[in-house]
């Protein structure tokens, strides 16, 4: 089985353990990267920095301490100490899926993989699970056991309630004080202006922001051939929808995506549209590219 194949969400859905999923994704992904000249990634030594209380004593370079009687920590190439904060949308709409994988599962795989990758790069990784408000908050940390905590929080996240990205991001901004990388994984069914307002506090504090916009292929192209009655998973509202309304839907969704992309650009944030039928590597590439730029 190739690495790319292992990044396919429908394949990952057959793996029961999220830990194993994350490991499979990241290792498969990294294997692919070794064959790619586009991205450089290594664990080569970069510099020393003085120890500050709270640093993990495992990274103290005891040889330097023996020679100089000073406590220094070893730092490697690419390591920026940029914390990764995953903002995970657990609203009801994330439970939609026209294929074997729902948006929630896809987002869960993605968040787990990012967390796995971050932890293994010695980046503090944290998690905020939200819907219309913050439900779970795991502060970014490099301590031992952080990854299982994150994965457990992700596994317990279930789609429920409505979504309110603005409110959730405002709440998250208050929780995160350390500058770092904020990755928002959501289907962003909020007006772009609300999302823009929500992004302002994060970008204003110097966070690097990546928006992972997760959508099901049926949402991107509803292939309705006859009128159907749709039920909104968040509000429970019913709506008669016919083929004639699909074209209008596509246009409005396209406008919404463009607006999000423009808003992200205006805030110096990155925007990544993810199709749940596609492999996860695009998202991971975006993370690494952003991390490299941040470092």
């Amino acid at each position: 089985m190739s690495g790319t194949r292992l990044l396919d969400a429908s394949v990952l859905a057959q793996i029961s353990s999220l830990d194993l999923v994350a490991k499979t994704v990241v290792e498969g992904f990294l294997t692919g990267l070794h064959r790619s000249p586009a991205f450089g990634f290594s664990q080569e030594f970069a510099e020393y920095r003085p120890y500050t209380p709270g640093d993990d004593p495992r990274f103290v370079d005891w040889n330097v301490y023996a020679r100089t009687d000073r406590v220094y920590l070893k730092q490697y190439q690419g390591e920026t100490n940029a914390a990764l904060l995953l903002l995970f949308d657990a609203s009801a709409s994330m439970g939609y899926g026209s294929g074997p994988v729902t948006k929630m599962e896809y987002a869960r795989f993605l968040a787990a993989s990012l967390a796995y990758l971050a932890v293994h790069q010695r980046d503090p990784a944290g998690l905020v699970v939200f819907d219309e408000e913050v439900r779970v908050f795991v502060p970014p940390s490099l301590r031992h056991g952080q990854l299982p905590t994150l994965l457990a929080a992700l596994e317990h996240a279930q789609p429920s309630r409505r979504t309110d990205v603005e409110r959730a991001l405002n709440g998250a901004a208050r929780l995160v004080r350390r500058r770092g990388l904020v990755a928002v994984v959501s289907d962003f069914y909020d007006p772009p202006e609300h999302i823009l307002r929500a992004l302002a506090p994060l970008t204003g504090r110097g966070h690097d922001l990546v928006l992972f916009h997760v959508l099901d292929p049926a949402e991107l192209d509803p292939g309705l051939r006859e009128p159907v009655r749709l039920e909104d998973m968040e509000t429970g509202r019913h709506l008669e929808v016919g083929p004639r309304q699909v074209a209008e839907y596509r246009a409005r969704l396209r406008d919404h995506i463009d607006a999000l992309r423009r808003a992200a650009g205006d805030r110096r944030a990155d925007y990544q549209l993810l199709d749940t039928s596609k492999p996860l590597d695009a998202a991971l590439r975006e993370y690494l590219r952003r991390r490299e730029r941040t470092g």
Partner: protein
Amino acid sequence: MSFLYPWFLLGLAALALPLWLHRLERQSAERRPWSSLTFFREAPQESVRRRRYRYFVLLACRLLLLALLAVLFARPFVDAGSALAGSAATRHLVAIDTSHSMAHGETWARAQRAAEAVLAGLRGGDRSQVLAFGPGVRVLGGPTSDHGSWRGAVEALAVTGARASYGELSEAVRTLAADDAAPLHLHLVSDLQRSAVPARFADLALPAGTELEVHDVGAPSRPNWCLESVKGRLRLHGDGPAELHVTLAGFDTAAAVRHVELRVGGRVAGAADVNVPAAGRAVVRFGEIAVPRGYSRAEIRMTPADDLPADDVFFVGLERTDSAPVLFVRTPADARAELYYRTALLSSAAGMFELQAVTPEAAQTLALERFAFVVLYDIARPPALLESRLRGFVEGGRAALVVAGPQVARQKSAPWVTGSMVDSGPRERPLHASAPSAGPMMAGAGERVADVRFHRYLRAEVPDDLVHVRLADGAPLLYEQPLGAGRLLVLTSPFDTRWNDWPLQVSFVPFAAASARWLARLDAAPVPLTVGEVLDLGAGHDRGSSVEVIDPDGRRALGLAESVSGRRVTLARAGFYEIRRPGLTTQAAVNPDVRESDLRPLEAETIARWQATGHAAPAARANADPERSKRDISPRVLWWLVAVVLVESTLANRYRRG
């Protein structure tokens, strides 16, 4: 509506299939989840309603399709009567009187205008039918909603010389109503003659639920004179003059003097002025009328003519004949029988018949055509030539009397007699005869024949309807034997006093005279006939001999086929008809029915009672003929099915594209 095979209606259970399929479709449409409806604009309400409407129309089409299919297999039929009873459409019968009295003044023109006005005033949804009555009732066509189509038929109608009968009209209406329970409206366009009412008022009864509307087109004042009857000897033998008594009648007339003139063969044979009392009768006698030999056409005319001129003329035929020659074929041993027969003819019909007796051998060379009929007395096997000529003689329209006696008993057969004749042998106790339905050949002798004692006779197998006189044991004594166009009588016991004593009984003379008149066709005296009567052209006419009937206008009354096979002709006009048979031509005088001359109208009370007969509830006649009233409506259901299939296919295709 009922069904021939109702168990096929179980197929209606298939209606659940489209209901189930449509229900599934509805449910799947309602329950389809979607992440967010943010980017869907709510559909316009009319679109949703239209879709729902389409949904129900399509479902209804499919349900109807399956239901019609099940109904079609069940073979539906309706009771035509009840189906029509439920509808508001009325069947209008426009009955137009074409009897002789309608020729009075402007009555007929008023009748045509009235009929057209009635038809023009009918509703479009109703059906109409035109009847003409007098003589009989003629239905001019089937009921139709196109009331204007009757215009030509009404214009083509003409007055006849026949009599109208409201009884016949009511009977026809009852017949027409038997298979149609729609409300009937009878429009009677007539002069409402009192004489057209039948003797029994019950015969006027209209079907229940029938509305009778009377259109009286008769003149307000209707005085009318007519020649009511002519009496006297119309057939003359010998050289004596004729005498006629003519009766004049006036209906609603004032006392007046009428001039009456008699013409015989176109020549004036007498004239008289007669005082006719008010609304009364007068008789005028014409004596010493010189009548030439043969048939003479006589015409009696009353002047001045009134508004109904056709009954001011009376046609009558006068016939003067020589003695009719009768050929009596016998063996020399039967001279006594000849004596009895000759004596009987001379005593009862003096001068009418002239008997010539010959042996069979001598008869072979005689010119048979000059004889009125032939008596073949106990000749079992006539010479071949005579047998052949006699057969042609009878088949050509003449007649013969075959008398069976000892000779026939020995041979057990008689000329032209079907089957064998078996000798009964001498009987110790004689049998008596009876003639319960004696024909004209037994006129005057029917009851008296019971006094005759028959000791011996010949048995023959004969259909009942041909037997005129039977013996006490049921054996036929006198019967008819069909043979071509002629008349053949068979007597199974001779009249020579050896086998019976009939020649010595009083019934023998009238039998001899009546049978001779019948065989010679002199029984049909030239009595004037009436317009509308049916003239019987004679039994055996269908055996190939043709007959030609010339009406008073000189035209053939029978078509080519009818002249060969037709047995009867309706006398439709007043005047003289000529009936031409091979070797025999007769004439008949025909006059209008005298009852038509009485133009007095019906009383209002009688009309009201007649109208009341149709006011009963119409329920009774719906079941007059249930089998006949059953109407299969499968073809109609099939058309509906085809239409629904087309609609369903069209809608389904359009909705799928939409």
